């Protein structure tokens, strides 16, 4: 899979040749303004427009999934370790949240934090696995996913077994979850861009390209993979906690299901694996697609996911981001052509 080049410095820098930044600015001003405008627009959306419960549901779900997909991409895209087992952390985040709410009656944010921490620690527990690279790692994650699904399905005292858990969430709290989800998605998106462009991002890139060469220049693959996997797991756990609170009913089969792990992979792949913000697009498309498919073709959606994966990998490995780059390049070339012509 090809690497997206780190974004070029803004055009203002080109005018002053003295300022050559080896590492581009973390977030340039126009980007920051645009980002804040997007978040603000989404924040006031439910207040300005009378959103139907359905639309409200859909946007909240998309926001939660955006956070999860971005976090998956830290591991799958930045480090290049494709995980087919992120559902484990998602489920743990969800069930720890549920348990804390039901047994200790803690307020929502404390429960989510608890879920995130446990999920992060669980991911750290995968430390021995992180010595594995490529297919070894991926297959091991399938194992972790399956094993955790089994353990949590049969651990009835904790997860309620196949009957699941019902979380005590009233409708006001549920409504407010929209902004919590937005906050999470916003922070994770900003973090993605910052990680990508910081020296940490370069180190991850080095690990992805060549572990041995990275080790030669003093980058410990083990340490950074642990770090990123724990962070990724914690964020996915947090997303799981928000998801559990929002839907107020969770069961292990759904939370730990293989479908959920596939979902994270697919969201990142649709948007663009390894691009900092591709998974945002991917998650939105995925949530819409899934809702539509489940409603119209419930018996076909798995195969369509598969076809989508195949087509994207064969024809546009960077997903929607790659596609839009290609379209932009073509437009620009055409624009340049006409301006020379007059």
């Amino acid at each position: 899979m090809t690497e997206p080049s780190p974004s070029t410095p803004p055009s203002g820098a080109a005018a002053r040749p003295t300022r050559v930044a080896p590492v581009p600015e973390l977030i340039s001003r126009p980007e920051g303004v645009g980002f804040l405008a997007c978040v603000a627009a989404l924040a006031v959306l439910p207040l300005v427009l009378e959103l139907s419960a359905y639309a409200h549901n859909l946007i909240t779900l998309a926001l939660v999934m955006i956070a999860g997909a971005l976090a998956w991409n830290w591991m799958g895209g930045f480090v290049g370790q494709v995980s087919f087992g992120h559902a484990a952390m998602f489920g743990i985040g969800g069930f720890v949240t549920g348990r804390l709410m039901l047994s200790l009656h803690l307020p929502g944010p404390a429960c989510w934090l608890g879920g995130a921490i446990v999920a992060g620690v669980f991911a750290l527990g995968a430390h021995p696995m992180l010595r594995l690279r490529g297919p070894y790692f991926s297959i091991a994650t399938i194992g972790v996913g399956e094993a955790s699904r089994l353990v949590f399905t049969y651990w009835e005292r904790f997860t309620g077994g196949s009957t699941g858990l019902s979380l005590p969430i009233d409708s006001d709290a549920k409504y407010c979850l929209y902004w919590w989800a937005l906050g999470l998605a916003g922070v994770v998106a900003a973090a993605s861009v910052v990680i990508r462009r910081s020296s940490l991002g370069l180190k991850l890139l080095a690990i992805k390209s060549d572990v041995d060469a990275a080790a030669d220049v003093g980058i410990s693959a083990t340490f950074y993979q642990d770090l990123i996997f724990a962070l990724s797991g914690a964020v996915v756990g947090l997303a799981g906690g928000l998801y559990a609170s929002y839907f107020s009913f969770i069961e292990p089969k759904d939370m730990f299901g293989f479908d959920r792990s596939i979902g994270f992979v697919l969201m990142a792949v649709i948007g663009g694996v390894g691009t900092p913000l591709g998974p945002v697009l991917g998650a939105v498309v995925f949530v819409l697609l899934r809702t539509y498919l489940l409603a119209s073709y419930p018996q076909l959606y798995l195969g369509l996911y598969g076809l989508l994966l195949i087509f994207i990998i064969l024809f546009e490995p960077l997903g929607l981001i790659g596609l839009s780059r290609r379209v932009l390049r073509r437009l620009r070339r055409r624009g340049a052509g006409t301006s020379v012509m007059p």
Partner: protein
Amino acid sequence: MSRFFDMILSAVLLAGLYATMAYGLGLIYGVLRVVNLAHGGVIMAGAYLGWYLHERFGLDPYLSIPVVLGFSFLLGVVMYQVLVRRLPRGAAGGPASLLLLFGVWLVLRNIAYLTFTGDDQTIRTAYSSRSVSILGSPVSVNRLVVLGIALVIAVSLHGFLKRTQVGRAIRAVAQNADSCTLVGIDVNRIYTLSFGIGTALSGVAGVLLATIFSFNPDAGSSELLKSFVVVVLGGLGSIFGVGIAALIVAAAEVFAILVLPSYLTTAVGFLLLVLVLIFRPGGLFGQRVLS
């Protein structure tokens, strides 16, 4: 003591199936350096094909093996020619091929759901419940036949790779594809052939599986996991090594019943995988490729 013997016996009987599953994955990985993530899906497809031939035409599952062999060989050839070959050269072993073949697995699963619904199936023949006594322990005839077929497959695969011209070419490509082009081996053809033979073996493993266990379209992930453990443990070095590794995995699973609740035996494969990858990442017998 006799209980211990029973367990050893059932591990040996299971090992044949595991070895057959692992050859398919190992051959493709050894030659193309691609982990066939659709392996579990092909096993599932083979199981359904055998089941269908038995239900529809009353064909004995063991007699249907040639048919399944042919079909899954074709499936593999198509998968290689249409999909895997198109990956950029460097990406073939990377995440791209994993995601691609994972997509194939999802498609296979969906096709199975649509055609056969999600119900559990198993191939039941007249002799399914018959058993013979070996040193006082009852042994299912079915499992004995599966072990026998697995041995035949192992011996013929060994003979094919060692003694035939094509087999030598496959081993040569596994060692160094670039040098092979120099001496006039059509590497692309060898890749196609290896992928085909690999999936054919997975398909046959599916039929063998279907005669012993029940399966549904979701089947395959634990098979993939176990095959992978066997391949890593046995190394790509020898058919014999894979056999020993299959025996170890089967024994671990059988004996795990003593200490673990039954639903967790699936997790044994995973536990073994992690242990093996940590302590013997080069396999039990070191890492030699198909030599």
